[in-house]
């Protein structure tokens, strides 16, 4: 006789149900598809950066003063910066930096935020109140502000920027996950889970957590654009990535005094920020519309 683990006996567990539901709906969402395609292009470009850029050595500290501030041409599609580095090369490599920041901040924030939120939502009572009051305090600081303060405290570099943005970002997921987890723990199948004598820890991580993920995933893609903008703003102020890292915000700030005479130094990295943030927003908006529970299962 095979022993069936108690979880399998529980009916109506909606774990990952959204995946099959989502597939059909997302395909019909033009906004989602457009955002996904643009992001795919960005990711592929970031991966292939050393092979698709004409001057990969410029991604770091390459200096070529003879060719400084050349206007866009067939040799240098986006022109060159003050020290003669190819702006196109640096913009493509900048995608790596931005994706690294987005990925790190989101995964750290989700690990901290969702874990705390699910525990708070499932436990309820004073634990929930305490966690919510703490998030209230963090949310009273706009993300860029607390990041600014932290980036002064710590040595400004890429790692600090990631850490600082994470510190300001996790409470959103805590609130979201706590709300969802509280509503899930009131459902019938969670009564079944409890009746089976499954430990609270196991109940939280096997049953509440997976079911709380749909809104979190939608929120993730909506937030990614904001993280790109915040990270760019930090490095624009000199508090994020440092020279010679190819980072879009830093590149815009390096060209800002030249904007009248050599617009390309700032404009192209700036447009890269815009396109990446916009693509993430389209992805998130499309997902939100497609997964909107009010649309029902048939539509």
């Amino acid at each position, binding site marked *: 006789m095979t022993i069936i683990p108690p979880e399998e006996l529980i009916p109506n567990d909606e774990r990952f149900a959204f995946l099959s539901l989502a597939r059909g709906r997302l395909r019909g969402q033009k906004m989602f598809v457009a955002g996904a395609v643009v992001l795919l292009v960005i990711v592929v470009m970031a991966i292939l950066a050393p092979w698709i850029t004409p001057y990969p050595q410029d991604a770091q500290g390459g200096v070529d003063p003879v060719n400084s501030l050349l206007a866009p041409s067939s040799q240098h599609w986006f022109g060159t910066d003050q020290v003669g580095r190819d702006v196109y090369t640096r913009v493509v490599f900048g995608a790596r930096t931005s994706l690294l920041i987005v990925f790190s901040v989101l995964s750290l924030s989700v690990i901290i935020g969702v874990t705390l939120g699910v525990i708070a939502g499932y436990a309820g009572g004073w634990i929930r109140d305490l966690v919510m*009051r*703490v998030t*209230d*305090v*963090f949310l*009273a*600081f*706009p*993300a*860029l*502000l*607390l990041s*600014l*303060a*932290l980036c*002064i*405290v*710590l*040595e400004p570099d890429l790692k600090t920027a990631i850490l600082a943005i994470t510190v300001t970002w996790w409470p959103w997921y805590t609130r979201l996950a706590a709300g969802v987890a509280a509503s899930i723990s009131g459902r019938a199948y969670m009564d079944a889970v409890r009746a089976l004598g499954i430990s609270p820890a196991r109940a939280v991580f096997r049953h509440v957590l997976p079911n709380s993920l749909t809104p979190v995933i939608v929120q993730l893609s909506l937030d990614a*654009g904001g993280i790109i*903008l915040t990270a*760019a*703003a930090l490095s*624009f*102020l000199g*508090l994020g990535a440092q020279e010679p890292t190819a980072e879009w*915000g830093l590149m*815009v*700030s390096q060209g*800002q005094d030249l*904007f*009248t005479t050599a*617009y390309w130094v*700032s*404009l192209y990295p*700036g*447009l890269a*920020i*815009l396109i990446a*943030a*916009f693509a993430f*927003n*389209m992805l998130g*908006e499309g997902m939100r519309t497609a997964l909107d529970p009010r649309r029902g299962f048939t539509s």
Partner: protein
Amino acid sequence: MGRYLVRRLAQAALVVVGVVVLTFIVVRLLPGDPAAAYAGPRASPEDLARARELLGLDKPVIAQLGMYMSGLVQGDWGTSLHTRLPVTHDLSIAFPASLELVGTALIFAVLIGIPLGLLAARFFGSPVDGAVRLGSMFAAAFPVFLLALIVQNTFATKLGWFPVAGEYDSKLDSTSPLHLYTNITIVDAFITGNWPIFLSTLHHLILPALVVAAYPIGVVTQMTRAAVSEEASLDHARLERALGFAPGQVLRRFSFRPSLNPILTLLALVFAYSLVNAFLVESIFNWPGLGNYAVASIRSLDTAAVAGVTLIVALAYVIANLLVDIAQTFIDPRVRLS
């Protein structure tokens, strides 16, 4: 109503205490010894010890937190290292300037965002709606510093329609000096009837305020569209249409007012966000606000000033939220029940 107010005020007070503690923690983490900065570079070990005692750094952390808090309450926010003036004095000049900029931006956001959102909701699902939706998302994704550079270069440097930087023409200070009451230049110029400065400030204000407004316009449009179209799908809207009200009338007369709540809540959130977003715009347009002050403080590792900026923005956010929540109970009687 009274009980709701008391509870809401208590909650806000709790958040304020938390904000102060968190700021204190961040400030305490700062590298470098505040006593060394205070005593100067050529201080002897005895001087350092004296400075440490004077600043209370020899006391336990909790006692220091207590001192910090009682200082804040008594209006002692420390002395700025780079201006050599009390932080409260610096903030009393910089904060109103930022408020002027962000306030104007939010007025733009309401005047442009709400009609656009209503338009999209009226033609929900049509190409008009699609265009407004895409446009508002585009505005929200635009990096504010890039927009500032483009706008400044185009409309100020190249076309010369607007001044490139500053709050008003400083030559006016000698010809028609401004009497300060609120420290918000445009308000003071208006109430004292100082028209040259009023017009000059307005002229300087338009470009940076429009740049700061881009993000709020985008999100206010999206929120208005979402809230109003949601409201218009409810039964009461169906009844109103059945009674013969035109669709546009139903939106304006019946669906808009219940949608004001989420829009107001959003505005409080956007206010704090824009205050910080304005930092970047201020540094490009050389606007004498919090952002310029913050950037200068950051460059000189001016702890007290940075803590002051952080605190005042967080406090402004808590107060804006509180005001919005209270305003909501007047706008929407349903709020009182919860």
